[in-house]
């Protein structure tokens, strides 16, 4: 369908206004802050610099770069784990459990009704020293002392996977549910066993769903703040916590803004490359 130019403007106006006020303008303000154009620091003023790259120099420090890489690694691991868990689940719901499909989908979506913060708290109590998991293991006599299940990398990863799993299941489900069952059966009759059928037919056909799931989990996971700060404790530092601390603990807004800009650029670059690679299929 072709839209007239006027219809296009009217339809896009609310979104454009909203994103201009709440995203584009703040983004450029942050960008300005990161270059010292707005809110210059005392040092910068004393040197009489109107614009400077000094805050970026602070960002390109080994320690901070390591945190960046760690965050990207966490996001990648989250995405990979989510896919591994989500694919069989989505496949089961879409292809096998035809009768209970809607009910199972509801169960998948339900956690999204509860705020992120509450879910992080829930995990904290579940895995904590006096939490449910330790309680069961202790009462079964499997362990003598509570295991230290929180405030480490594993607990952060568990929390992340738990949070993002629905976002991986939904796009996978939507491609798998459109998959004609006869295609799979045809492959079997033509001489491919169940495994070969999966790798030659089912998986290739559901590629758009896989690509969408990767996008939907990786991007928010890359900038995740709540889960690492709750389940990671003070010792597990990721980008989210780092930037948060720069703004609110160190009160160095220029530094925080510079970090944000660098990290956003890195993630954005990754997404652009990714879309270039697979964008064609996502459009299907």
């Amino acid at each position, binding site marked *: 369908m072709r839209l007239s130019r006027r219809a296009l403007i009217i339809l896009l106006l609310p979104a454009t206004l909203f994103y201009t006020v709440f995203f584009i303008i703040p983004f450029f303000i942050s960008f300005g802050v990161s270059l010292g154009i707005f809110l210059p620091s005392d040092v910068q003023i004393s040197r009489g610099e109107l614009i400077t790259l000094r805050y970026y120099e602070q960002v390109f420090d080994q320690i901070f770069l390591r945190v960046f890489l760690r965050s990207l690694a966490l996001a990648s691991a989250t995405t990979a784990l989510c896919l591994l868990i989500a694919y069989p689940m989505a496949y089961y719901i879409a292809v096998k459990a035809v009768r209970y499909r809607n009910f199972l989908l509801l169960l998948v979506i339900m956690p999204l009704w509860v705020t992120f913060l509450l879910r992080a708290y829930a995990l904290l109590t579940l895995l904590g020293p006096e939490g449910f998991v330790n309680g069961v293991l202790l009462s079964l006599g499997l362990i003598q002392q509570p295991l230290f299940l929180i405030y480490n990398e594993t607990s952060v990863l568990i929390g992340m996977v738990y949070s993002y799993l629905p976002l991986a299941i939904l796009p996978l489900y939507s491609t798998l549910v459109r998959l004609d069952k006869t295609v799979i059966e045809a492959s*079997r009759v033509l001489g491919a066993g169940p495994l070969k059928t999966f790798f030659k037919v089912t998986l290739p056909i559901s590629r758009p769903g896989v690509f969408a799931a990767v996008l939907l989990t990786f991007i928010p996971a890359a900038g995740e703040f709540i889960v690492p700060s709750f389940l990671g404790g003070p010792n597990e530092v990721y980008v989210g916590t780092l930037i948060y601390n720069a703004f609110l603990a160190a009160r160095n807004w220029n530094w925080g803004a510079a970090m944000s800009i660098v990290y956003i650029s890195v993630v954005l670059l990754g997404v652009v490359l990714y879309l270039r690679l697979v964008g064609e299929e996502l459009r299907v």
Partner: protein
Amino acid sequence: MSNAVELDNIVKKYGGVIAVDRVSLEVEKNTFFSILGPSGCGKTTILRIIAGLETPDAGFVKMDGSIVNNVPPEKRGVGLVFQGTAVFPHMNVFNNIAYGLKMRKVPKHEVEERVRNVMRLVNLPPEVYGARRVDQLSGGERQRVEIARSLVLEPKVLLLDEPLGPLDFKIRQKMQAELKRLQKTTATTFIYVTHDQTEALSLSDKIAVMRRGKVVQVGTPEEIYNNPSDQFVADFIGESNLLEGRVEGGFFYAEGLPPIALNSQAVAGGKAVIAIRPERVEMLGAEKMENHVNGVVVDKTYQGVYTVFRVQVGKEHVFTVYVTRPDVARQFAVGDSVVIGWRSSDCMMVGGL
């Protein structure tokens, strides 16, 4: 010689519902065998059981004389053709057809050659269609890709599940002729599932008519049409005027009708149902026929090849009559009193006795 496929007392239930009820069938080699029945009669389930996509709850599936109940679909060596919906959307035409050969690790040059040959066989010239994407194909072309994909493996048995269902009339007719030609040239056993009786009659060497999970009659098209085993077959294959009544001394007595002379072969007495094909009933010169009744035309519908008359006889009976000659059809109109008649040999005994 053993049969290509043999079913021995096959039972299949879904939940509490019996989809296939003690079905036994013998399909001879190199024949065009149709399984015909209304939707939900279990014919597709039978096909899936032969393909190995469903496991029967009881009974045996034999191919070439040996039981294959536990052989998975990929090892049965049968071909299965759906309605053109099962082409692989992520592969071009060539790769779709080459799929099974690649699974069997056939050398590349041989794959190339066999795919090209089979593409010519199904009228998809490889030069034109080889690289074509599946979503650029018409329904009929997809259907042919599916058929080629199975035929290239030279299966002993090709199963076809209402393959022409979604195609429009002209293409259907063309594909029917093509299927028959393919069956003959490839000397493959075709097992063809359909609910379309005309299709089954024109294509098959043998037909099994199914109803509610059971096989009600197996026979050649002529046998099925001219000698239906019961009311259901008489009414499902073609149309029939069914009459209920009693047989006594070579005559059939139905309420509100004069005695109807029967073929001398039908001598036994008792309750019975007879069927008379609408195209065997005459409206011109019927007074002189051995069986004739008086009636009134209550409906007249032009159908192209013939005209359908509904004739009310007495209070209870409405006869359907096909008149092929337009000059005869023109002589009668709704409300006219007519005499309709038929030969004793056209009374088919379909029930009772």
